[in-house]
């Protein structure tokens, strides 16, 4: 399908790459179909583009690149929702807030996206661990 996006102009999206949110993301009710735009497999950053509202797009990242100790415990409800049989099948991405200066960008570790890529399902999960902050710097200040 062809999608007209504000960020990238017209883009061609492979229907097979579309994922269905089992629950809308908080703040974006009604948007259930997204696609992960993944032009470069070696790049930990990707786009998460709504297929229903061309103006809604998030920058997402592979947390392992930035936070090697980051651990997402997928609870029973989310496991069921995502039709996950094993936690090992879950793929986790964090939403990145670019802000004004990319060197200061932050990731939302409190509410990651959890994917079951085999079933093309996804859900934003709010973790109970209060140590995970919604604005965690991707780069430590001294680096």
């Amino acid at each position, binding site marked *: 399908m062809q999608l007209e996006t504000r960020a990238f102009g017209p883009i061609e999206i492979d229907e097979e790459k579309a994922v269905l949110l089992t629950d809308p993301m908080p703040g974006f009710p009604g948007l259930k179909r997204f696609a992960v735009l993944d032009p470069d497999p*070696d*790049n*930990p950053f990707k786009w998460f583009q709504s297929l229903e509202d061309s103006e809604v797009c998030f920058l997402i990242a592979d947390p392992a690149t930035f936070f090697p100790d980051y651990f997402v415990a997928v609870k029973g409800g989310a496991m069921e929702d995502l039709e996950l049989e094993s936690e090992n099948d879950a793929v986790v991405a964090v939403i990145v807030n670019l802000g004004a200066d990319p060197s200061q960008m932050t990731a939302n570790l409190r509410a990651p996206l959890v994917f079951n890529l085999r079933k093309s399902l996804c859900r934003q999960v709010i973790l109970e661990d209060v140590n995970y902050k919604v604005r965690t710097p991707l780069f430590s200040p001294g680096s």
Partner: protein
Amino acid sequence: MLVLTRKIDESIIIGDNIEVKLLAVDGSSIKLGIQAPRAVPVHRKEVYEEIVRENQAARTAAPVALENLKRLLKERK
């Protein structure tokens, strides 16, 4: 808003399968037990609202080239 008075160990039922039970009262704090189907997410409202705000803030307004971010990552690492 529907307002109901409950005593400790009394509960309310929402729909067919959500139960909210008053477990304990300590000054201005009350402890609630919530039994809901596993697919129904239950959150403290302020946490949920924080995620709403952050999602809205993170929504990307201007496109950046992912290439540039990858380069930035290399410089920083």
